[in-house]
């Protein structure tokens, strides 16, 4: 059974039918938003059952669309939090990525701007490494990008998609060793992205992110995870009920190979470790429970089958 990420949009009336159906089919709901009279579900469902969900939700005016970014956590790395980079383009891109189902976090560097003076500290590096992918938003000059990128990518282990002012070919030429994805002609700008050509650029960023994530998914599929991260959501919710009191929009953030639990590490790490999955197997046996560099959260990294010899 292959699970594919989709978004369901429909009316609030009888939406629990769809929720039950997805759960019965063996799918997982990653995020649920109720906006006025509309429900948006971001979920993983079995590929062969999408048509069934479409059929059943048709009388409810539901709509099922592919959203390849569901279940990923993306770091949008902005060079600073100054007016130069915010709200355009950093927020525009972060928001657009979110619209397609990803959980995007904006990581702003303390000393990102400039050429010679640019730098990346250990906390920023670790926070970026906790995500599935990092999208670097660079400036308009190839001289500066060429000069500062070796510093800014030092120690980054996740795939990088680099956006910058110069053309894509120029970016490919000046970045050595190459990064995973490039989007040219998206540098610093001071206007809202609303024209057709600007939105096309945002779509290009999404395509590049999707392509890189797809590659990462294939890598993971070669050595499958011991447990599907989206499955852990429900288990943690049942066995660590304190998570229900967390007011953050996504108390449990699903990643491609893990999960962020927004509870203090010192108090809850042991409890999370003891979460029973099935047949006496606990979460601690199939995953590493680590302190996150983001506040005092817990980060769960699911181990591959080759390391645990367990698949649940």
């Amino acid at each position: 059974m292959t699970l594919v990420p989709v978004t369901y949009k429909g009316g609030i009336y009888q939406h629990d039918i769809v929720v039950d159906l997805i759960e019965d089919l063996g799918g997982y709901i990653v995020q649920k938003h109720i906006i006025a009279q509309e429900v948006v579900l971001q979920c993983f469902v079995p590929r062969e059952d999408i048509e069934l969900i479409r059929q059943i939700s048709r009388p409810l005016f539901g709509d099922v669309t592919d959203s390849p970014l569901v279940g990923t956590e993306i770091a949008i790395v902005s060079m600073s939090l100054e007016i130069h980079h915010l709200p355009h383009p950093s927020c525009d891109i972060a928001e657009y990525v979110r619209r397609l189902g990803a959980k995007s976090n904006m990581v702003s560097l303390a000393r990102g701007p400039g050429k010679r003076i640019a730098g990346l500290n250990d906390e920023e590096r670790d926070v970026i490494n906790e995500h599935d992918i990092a999208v670097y938003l660079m400036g308009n000059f190839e001289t500066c990008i060429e000069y500062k990128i070796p510093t800014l990518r030092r120690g980054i282990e996740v795939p990088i998609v680099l956006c910058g002012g110069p053309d894509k070919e120029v970016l490919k030429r000046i970045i050595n060793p190459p990064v995973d994805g490039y989007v040219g002609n998206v540098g610093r700008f001071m206007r809202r992205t609303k024209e057709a050509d600007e939105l096309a650029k945002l779509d290009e960023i999404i395509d590049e992110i999707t392509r890189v994530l797809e590659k990462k998914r294939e890598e993971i599929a070669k050595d499958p995870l011991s447990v599907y991260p989206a499955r852990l959501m429900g288990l943690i919710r049942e066995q660590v009920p304190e998570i229900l009191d967390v007011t953050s929009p996504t108390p449990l953030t699903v990643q491609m190979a893990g999960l962020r639990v927004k509870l203090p590490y010192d108090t809850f790490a042991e409890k999370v470790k003891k979460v029973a999955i099935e047949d006496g197997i606990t979460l601690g046996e199939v995953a590493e429970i680590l302190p996150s560099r983001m506040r005092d959260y817990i980060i769960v990294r699911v181990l591959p089958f080759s390391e645990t010899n367990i698949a649940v």
Partner: protein
Amino acid sequence: MQTVEYFEVECPEALGAEYYKQIANDVLLDHNLLKVVDKLHIFIDPKVPIFVAVGLLKKITTRIRVGDFANVNPQEGKMTLVTSDETYLAPMLKIFWERFSKDKVEQPDRFTVILYNVPATPQEIEEIVVADPSESLHKDLIYALRCIAPEGFRLRSEVFTGTKFTFVASENTLAEDIGTLVAEKFRLMGEVPP
């Protein structure tokens, strides 16, 4: 950019120049400065790195008077002022309070002010200067140029003399002979450096 007579961005990287022209245009438009800038020449060299903006301002003589945004209707023993927009309402009230004291000024609603038995004619009231937009002009222009300049360029030198302005920024210590470069850019615009 119809109102700006001369507007150029000079940069060794052609694409970079194009982007910065767009940025400068957007920022000046956002800050309502397009109508006060007459000429603007921006030079950026990311290799040095240096950012130079030189330009000329138009002479602004328009002061905002009460008559520009309010109708003064004299009645017996009082004057009713009906304002069309609230932008200058607060400074106007402040001037009235100082000049006529608070008990003679009443504001029954957002767009109406009533003056009771004030020792002034309606014409005099209309002529009262409420605000001078040119006062904050230099401050606004420096802020706008800081937004246009690359963010890392934090060492700045700003010179404003009457209608001419110079803004130089870099992330390294500014060279001592920066004046020569500035003068050269003024000559490109067909102007004499200040």
